[in-house]
Each structure stands twice: as structure tokens, then as C-alpha cells.
């Protein structure tokens, strides 16, 4: 048995079109249940859509955005979104929306827009790094 490993997760699929986010979320809960830690989750490519705060699926369906937020609240896990991938797909924080002269924003804490340096840092810090795509 290995105890106290640090995991890094990379999520590359969009909610409701790819099974990847749901797999990653279930895996994240299983990691914690086995006594390990999650160093961070990085959302890249279509995975950035997990950070869309205006997501409003029917009430009998899992709200993946809300589920990631809860994971962050319960276990203080960083949720980082690739800023370049996000801007391309119309996802912006309040400060980015101001910078681009946009009237609205749809990325808010605990999700943070960040660069690929953060991904490389997570890959280096984590004992185990797993891609969900």
C-alpha cells in the first residue's frame, strides 16, 4: 500500500459531450477516499467548459461545474483552467472580460484562469499524473 500520494489530474473533455469530466470527478473522490491528496486539477482543450459558471443542466442531472466547486470547497483542491483555451471558447473571468471589453463573464473562483506553466508545475509536483480525455 502506498499512502499519501499526490495526484494531478488533467481534464480535456467537455461536460455532457465527453465522459472524461465525470470519470475524472469520480476518480477524484476515489483518490480522497483512499487517503491520498489531489495537488490540482487542470482543465485544457474542451475541458475548459467545466469551468462555465452559467451551466444549467436539468435538475435531475449532475451539474458538473457545481460538483467541481464542491470538491474544491471540501478538499481545497485548485481548479486551474488554461487561459488560452478558455478565451478561444468564450470563457472569461471578470478581469479578462473587462480587458476584452466584454459585457459579461462566466468564470469565477474557485476556478482560476492560468497558463500552461501551471500545468507543467502540476506535472512535476504530482506523484501520479492522469489524463482524462
Amino acid at each position, binding site marked *: *500500500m*502506498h499512502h499519501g*500520494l499526490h*495526484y494531478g489530474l488533467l481534464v*480535456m473533455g467537455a461536460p455532457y459531450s465527453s*465522459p*472524461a469530466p465525470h*470519470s475524472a470527478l*469520480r*476518480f477524484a*473522490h*476515489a*483518490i480522497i*477516499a*483512499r487517503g*491520498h491528496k489531489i495537488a490540482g486539477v487542470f482543465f485544457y482543450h474542451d475541458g475548459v467548459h467545466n469551468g462555465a459558471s452559467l451551466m444549467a443542466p436539468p435538475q435531475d442531472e449532475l451539474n458538473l461545474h457545481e460538483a467541481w466547486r464542491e470538491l474544491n470547497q471540501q478538499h481545497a483542491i485548485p481548479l486551474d483552467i488554461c487561459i488560452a483555451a478558455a478565451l478561444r471558447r468564450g470563457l472569461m473571468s471578470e478581469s479578462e472580460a473587462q480587458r476584452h471589453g466584454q459585457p459579461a463573464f462566466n468564470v469565477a473562483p474557485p476556478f482560476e484562469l492560468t497558463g500552461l506553466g501551471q500545468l507543467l508545475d502540476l506535472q512535476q509536483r504530482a*506523484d*501520479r*499524473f*492522469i*489524463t*482524462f*480525455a
Partner: protein
Amino acid sequence: MMLHILTKTPDSSASIEMQQAVGEQDSVLLIEEAVSAALDPAWAVWEQHQSRIFLLSEDLIARGLASIAVDNELPMLDMDGFVALTEQYAKIVTWY
């Protein structure tokens, strides 16, 4: 030593690429679309990597394939088993 995670069907290009890369001490975990491998117990990869290849049971159940996997006596792991497998392998690659 490496853990290979396949997310696409057994006949996908991701699967073909993975099959060329799996070493003798490696393990294989089939998740998401890859659990459709349960429908084909004659798939050569089952025997090639015997005792080192597994289906994710949650994804079998979600796709209505769990009883077929049981009938075909194919090896399964649940999410907890998935994490346990990642404890054994420092290197993990996902094929998609």
C-alpha cells in the same frame, strides 16, 4: 512499468496505438467507450495481457454491459481498484 488507460473502443486508432506500446510488465485499464471490449471475449488483447488487463465496472454498469462481462469471465475493477492500480505505477498514459 506503466499503466495504460484506454478510453476508446477496441477497434479505434487509440487502441491500436496502445497495443503497440504495452510492455510485458505493464497493465491496461479499459474505461468509458473501451468497456465495449466486454462484448468480444475473443479479442486477442485479453490473452496477451492476461491478469494485467481490467474493465472499469462503473462504466460497464453505465452501459449495461456488466452482466456480459461477468458471463464472459472478464476481469473487472471498481473506482477504488482503479486508484489502487495507479498506486502501483508511477507512469500512467491515457490513450484517447
